[in-house]
């Protein structure tokens, strides 16, 4: 039996992080097959509820990634997003969700390697935590 493979939802902005994921793929960078990518136009589109919903739905972790500050294709969408995440992240930890289940990153279209690294890191982090239980809704 091979190692447990967490399933992590990755919400990626179309212009930077999704392109970074494409580049990682095109560059044949190998990273753990843990993430399930959802493409959104901009990290600014990410409602904190998306993250909670995904955790409730059973994903073991959630990664949200957008353009680096200053790089946003939509100028400031990532800044708007950052404020939301800046409140959400400590709040989730506060209520007792494991800190590493939900992570945020900035990955540019040119950073295929960074994408691979970020995915590897969050996968390791989540693997260490084990399968998600706390916010998972039993159906």
């Amino acid at each position: 039996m091979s190692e447990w493979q967490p399933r992590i939802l990755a919400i990626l902005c179309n212009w930077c992080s999704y392109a970074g994921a494409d580049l990682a793929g095109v560059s044949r960078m190998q990273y753990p097959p843990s993430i399930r990518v959802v493409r959104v136009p901009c990290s600014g589109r990410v409602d904190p509820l998306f993250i909670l919903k995904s955790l409730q739905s059973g994903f073991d972790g959630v990664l949200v990634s957008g353009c680096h500050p200053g790089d946003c294709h939509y100028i400031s969408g990532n800044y708007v997003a950052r404020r939301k995440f800046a409140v959400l992240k400590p709040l989730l930890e506060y209520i007792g969700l494991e800190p590493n289940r939900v992570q945020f990153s900035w990955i540019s279209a040119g950073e295929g390697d960074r994408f691979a690294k970020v995915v590897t890191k969050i996968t390791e982090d989540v693997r260490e935590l084990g399968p998600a239980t706390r916010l998972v809704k039993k159906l």
Partner: protein
Amino acid sequence: MKNKKNSVLVLGAGIAGIQASLDLAEMGVEVHLIEDTPTIGGRMPQLDKTFPTNDCSMCILSPKMSECARHPLITIHIMSALKEISGDPGNFICRVIERAKYVDPVKCVSCGLCEAKCPVKIDDEFDMGLRKTRAISRYFLQSIPSEYTINPRHCLYLTKGVCKLCEKVCPTGAINYEDKDKEIDISVGAVILATGIDPFNPIGFGQYGYHRYSNVVTSLEFERMLSASGPFGGHIVRASDDQPPKKLAFIQCVGSRDEGIDKNYCSSACCMFAIKQSIIAKEHSRDLEASIFYMDIRAFGKDFDKYYDKAENHYGVKFKRSKIADITELPDGCLELKYTYENGDIQREVFDLVVLSTGFQPRQGSRELSENLDFRLNRFGFCHSDTFHPQETTRKGVFVCGAMNSPKDIPESVVSASGAVAGAVKLLDPGRHDVSTGEKEIKEKDVVGERPRVGVFVCHCGINIAGVVDVKNVAEMAKGLKNVEHSEDVMYACSTDCLEIIKERIEEHDLNRVVVAACTPRTHEPLFRDTISAAGLNPYLFEMANIRDQCSWAHMNEPEKATAKSRDLVEMAVSKARSLTPLKRLPIAIDPEALIIGGGLAGMTCALAIADAGHDVFLVEKENVFGGNMRDIFFNPDGSDPQQFLAETIEKVENHSGIRVFLNSTIEEIAGYVGNFRTMFTNGSGQQEELTHGVVVVATGGQEHKTTEYLYDESSRVITQKEFEAMLHDEKFPPGKLREVVFVQCVGSREEGRMYCSRVCCSKAVKNARQLQHKKAKANIYFAYRDVRTYGFSEQYYSELRDSGALFFRYTPGNKPEVEKIDPDDPDSRIRVTLFDPVLEKDVVIDADLLVLATAIDPLEENLRLAKMLKIPLNSDGLFLEAHVKLRPVDFATDGIFVCGLAHSPKDMGESIAQAKAAGSRALTFLKKRSILAEGTIAEVRTDRCSGCGYCEDVCAYAAIEIDLEEGVAVINDALCKGCGACVASCRCGALDLRGFTNEQLFSVFDSLEIEAVEGIL
């Protein structure tokens, strides 16, 4: 001119020909695209990746190929040749020979049964002979058109009158052995030539042993070896023993920079090509070792030096400046290279595979073509054109683009293609048209209220996906998903035949949603959307799952997990697809005027291109004169006079009825969006003026870097190249004799803070050094350089300079020339320059009368202000960042804004002119339309839910939302909305939603996967 024809013939369907055709067609011009081979695409489909972004070549090209094939104004003539042009510019008759194809393209369904049965095996030209194909075949899998053709030179029936197997197996009776060559006459207003180049053929050439040694290959062969769709499925193996090579050698300048074979020019792209191949090879196998044997690394393009640096320092590619003396084959097939370093050291090293970086040479038959069509070739056999008219041949009305007139990489080819269009369109009269002109109106099926009926197509992408992911399993799984009516696996989802299959399935199964699991929607979504649109579905009823970039390529060694992930991604895509709704794109009217910011060479050229096509131009220049940096350029290597050309250009601009010029003017604010810009600027008399216009061209230029190095501030004898050129022109030399003149290159370039090559300095220094020799015959020239980057035809001037006795000293950033004043107190003191000579391996001291610094080209500081105003990006160097470095080199991601000249990156006059014309053409693709369609994915308000709190208004970067204070609800400007969704996520009330990425759609994705499965794949 009467009877202007609104059509153009484009000869050659490589990337340049395709780009020219698309630009023309977008302007409403009818295009005949003539191609010699059985497919459009040219060289690009043969490439695996493109530098410096490693984009997959086929991936970025295929949407353009499809667009070309689908465009109603473009007629493609494959296997055809242009025999003769008669008539006058604006009214040509072109005689075209269409060779017999022996397969009726209307009947052929590209099923491939004929190829499977054909007994004649021949070398596959597309795969550089590394694979066999048949006498009846398709040129390559994604060929457009996709129909098969018979090669009459090899077909048994056509040569010997026996066989006819293909006719027997053809299910549609498409084979027609009686097919004949046809001659047709096409009347057009202009002709654009884009026949491209041939790679240098090194058979029997020099000491490299190509074709004698089985493990010596050309770079194009190696490219096919790297390609996942290539003969070895992307596994690099040696021909001799099918073993993966561990050690690779790339030998540069094979067939370039070689006076001995009359190829004293640089092919401009091979250095980057080799660097790319070494990087990709290392990505295939990290422990592979790659060495590049070179004279100079010519990484002179935008972001190229960073790529070079990455290859050397990140990937560990070894760069060996040396000369290859000899190659010998060892019994195990390995190759021993004997090479000499510049200091004379001789080395021997064994490699498993040697790649010859073959240069470009004129296409076979160029001379015949030039005679038939009556245009001149240059001394190397390329089509002749001059610096100031880079896209004009010697025959009026016949233009040239791509590498046909000089070696070029892809973006330069694209630029030149658009530039050629600017010339051609002057001879036509397309007028303005509505966006739907020529497009067949397909009645859209009303799916509202219908139960979702999803069709799923899972792409093999050859072996790109299917080599790792169990594609059939994924397709089978999809059959079990809710609302999935049909699911199948397909070889190449984006190929024309598969697009047809998708359309058929939509019909057959009454599908109202389509999911394609293939590659990235970033490149392929438009293609599939158009396809389902052609089948009567709203294009937004489409969703992609990226199982290639995210599964097969990222998890190559874990096929089961890659398959499991692909299943999930497909399930998620189907979930989203289920709740997709048809979206409408609203028309946006386009103002027919253009604003050009910057009145240098690029700005003026662009202004003329647009104005000559019948559109009003506002040309705004911050200085009180036109000309920009060109006012400081006095010489051109070919002997023409830049100042005369500049004066003529300024005169044309100032007297053009379609150009309004504003000198001494500063842009204050630019509001609006494509087709509807509103610009406030302060005019020459200090008053505010407002202009409305449809497009913006950024041609703000660049500036010479202000250096503090090499005593520049302290000595009158240290000057910049610009100052030196003025000195040469004015002949105001420093007092006393001028014997020892030192040139230092890369001052400020290619180092921390400016990690780019300023591109023009080497050629400029060579040009000025030759001028100096001309004016001061006794002057000794010392040239301190890092790499001499006299690319293209400038190479001949470099070698002339070298031959004339100028001394060249290579330095490294760690060992820069040292300078001191001989008399420290005298500002006019001569300068003592100490150079390290790597050949002699010792210092050389020169007491210089003049030290000429090739200072870098800097972006303007005000770029940032303009970038913010226009909401367009800058790259890390502060240069404007185009939409795509390969295929959209003058566009911004934001519609209606274009860039040219030094604002984009350092370039010489000819290149600025080409790019300016290209920007003009691209602008005309908008201006020639009365209206375009807005995006469908924009935000919308449910006013019953809106409480009017105004957070959306605050977070919108485009001022696309306002609160109507009367009603207390948000109102969205559809044309301004860019669809980012920041407002949507900021709306507590759920009153906002983003079409195409609605809450409902995204929620269903988050909820789509079965929870048990979440326990993990064990």
